[in-house]
């Protein structure tokens, strides 16, 4: 079962190389490990006997980086091929998304290939699966052997369903990439189909989910206090945690960093009705790091649907650093007179406090404290709904 993490925009899929003993499963992983640059892969973990026979499994994580907006990761596993390690093979198959069946092309191994394929079917059944429900390909390995069985014969024996198949000489790295490409494509195509066919949540369901989120017992919350005002509706904060952020107000006078204040969770913040205007603002500003200009950031704020007092706004930020790195953040804020709640976000969480809107003034200040999943924080402020937005990156943590 693959996992899709929408917070980190990350997909993780498990691919298992299966086949009879000494057919070249580990060799496939070794070839991938030798070819792929270290920044795209982790270490090859091998649990092998002294004779280099796989005892439990081999494991190689691949990180392809961002593909179509999702960080795509594959975990490649092999199983021990020897007949008496079946319990281990069964364990490794748990949660599998794709299987590469590595067949040995030697003439005297055809029966082993057939038995191993039958064993794969049996072991999948123990998880209530069959080969039709997962993505799989066949790799005819060791094509350089003098007694290699012709491909047609192997296809007839092992591939009656005509799944994608390819020839390889894994010891020389030939056909290894093609096999990985084929299985990766099948796994991701299946995943795309599943996510497309599943019903999408409506905006109301999303809001309900967000509301339910507020009920989840939390161990850590953060409060934000607008500069120049007393704390009015802080979100409960963990004791001892401080907001290490400094921001410039629109007037240019930097307020002192404020510590987050702990508040009793039982005290519900008072809400007041407030008119929040339609808004579409886009502003470009410098991104600074330790006082140096290192790039640019573009902030866009748009009013979303909702005319009631809980109007919501979408905030998107795209920052480019040194012409090298580009990051995009999106989130949705829900503003009311006394507090601003996060109702949806990507990659970063936003807590905002509207300073003067509660007094009925349009064009109040909004201060947003941004905290990403790694507890790095920065502080931005923007003022004058409908007019200008001022983004104030607060030092190094913006970029980390």
């Amino acid at each position, binding site marked *: *079962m693959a*996992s*899709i993490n*929408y*917070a*980190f925009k990350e*997909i*993780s899929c*498990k691919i298992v190389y299966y086949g009879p003993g000494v057919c070249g499963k580990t060799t496939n992983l070794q070839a991938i490990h030798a070819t*792929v*640059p270290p920044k*795209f892969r*982790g270490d090859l*973990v091998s649990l092998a006997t002294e004779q280099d026979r796989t005892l439990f*499994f081999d*494991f190689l994580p691949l990180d*392809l*980086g961002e*593909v*179509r*907006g*999702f960080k*795509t990761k594959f*975990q490649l*596993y092999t199983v021990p091929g020897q007949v008496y390690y079946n319990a281990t093979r069964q*364990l*490794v198959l*748990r*949660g599998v998304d794709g299987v590469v069946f590595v067949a040995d092309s030697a003439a005297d191994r055809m029966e082993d290939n057939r038995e191993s394929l039958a064993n794969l079917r049996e072991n999948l059944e123990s998880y209530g*699966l069959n080969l039709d*429900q997962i993505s799989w390909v066949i790799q005819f390995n060791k094509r350089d052997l003098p007694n290699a069985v012709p491909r047609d014969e192997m296809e007839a024996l092992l591939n009656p369903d005509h799944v994608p198949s390819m020839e390889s000489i894994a010891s020389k790295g030939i056909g290894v*990439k093609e096999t*990985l*490409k084929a299985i*990766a*494509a*099948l796994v*991701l195509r299946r*995943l*795309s*189909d*599943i*996510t*497309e066919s*599943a*019903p*999408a*949540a*409506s905006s109301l369901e*999303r809001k309900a*989910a*967000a509301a339910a*989120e507020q009920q*989840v*017992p939390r*161990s*850590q919350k953060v409060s934000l206090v607008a500069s120049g005002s007393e704390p009015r509706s802080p979100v409960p904060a963990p004791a001892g945690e401080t907001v290490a952020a400094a921001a410039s107000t629109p007037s240019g006078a930097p307020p002192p960093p404020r510590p987050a204040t702990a508040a009793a969770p039982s005290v519900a913040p008072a809400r007041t009705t407030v008119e929040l205007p339609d808004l579409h603002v886009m502003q470009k500003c410098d991104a600074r790091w330790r006082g140096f200009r290192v790039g640019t950031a573009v902030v866009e704020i748009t009013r979303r649907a909702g005319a009631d007092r809980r109007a919501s706004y979408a905030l998107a930020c795209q920052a480019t650093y040194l012409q090298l790195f580009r990051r995009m953040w999106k989130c949705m804020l829900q503003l009311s007179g006394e507090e601003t709640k996060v109702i*949806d976000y990507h*990659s970063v969480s936003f807590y905002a406090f509207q300073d003067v809107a509660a007094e009925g003034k349009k064009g109040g200040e909004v201060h947003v404290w941004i905290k990403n*999943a790694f507890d790095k924080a920065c502080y931005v402020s923007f003022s004058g709904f409908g007019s200008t937005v001022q983004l104030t990156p607060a030092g190094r943590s913006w970029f980390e």
Partner: protein
Amino acid sequence: MAQMPLMLTTADQKMLHEVLVDLLKKSASRCVLLVDLSGRCLAHAQSKEKIDVDALAALLAGAFSSMRALATLVGETEFSVLFHQGEHSRIHNILVDEDRFLSVISGQRSTMGKVRLCAENAAEQIAARFRAIAQRTTVAESPLHASMAKDTGKRLDEIFDS
């Protein structure tokens, strides 16, 4: 019927991260991982040192799965806790639900009792969350792009040829 992938929304991830960070702090541990039994690290939190969480998750899942098989052999349905003790480090694993476990790697700063207590509390919170996730019938966020598979192939070409 096709297997549904586990879909963690931003709210799910945020909650998991908060629980793990809390556990890390309270138990004064070095690293905390939420791992599924297929070997994926679903979420983790660690102190300053960097541990290879991918490899760790794969190996821990292997150990945990073996322990389950062991339990069956000796007539138990489950061993819910797995513990490793080293000279400087300890690994405490606790089952969250059928498919996931929580792993706490601690050093000499923390006591075993505290780790166990905090881990049990965290496991309960996480289990409740995954029960809610399992009941979802909709995709919370956008589907994957249709050309994802094709682009992944191109990406693999680039990586292998680089």
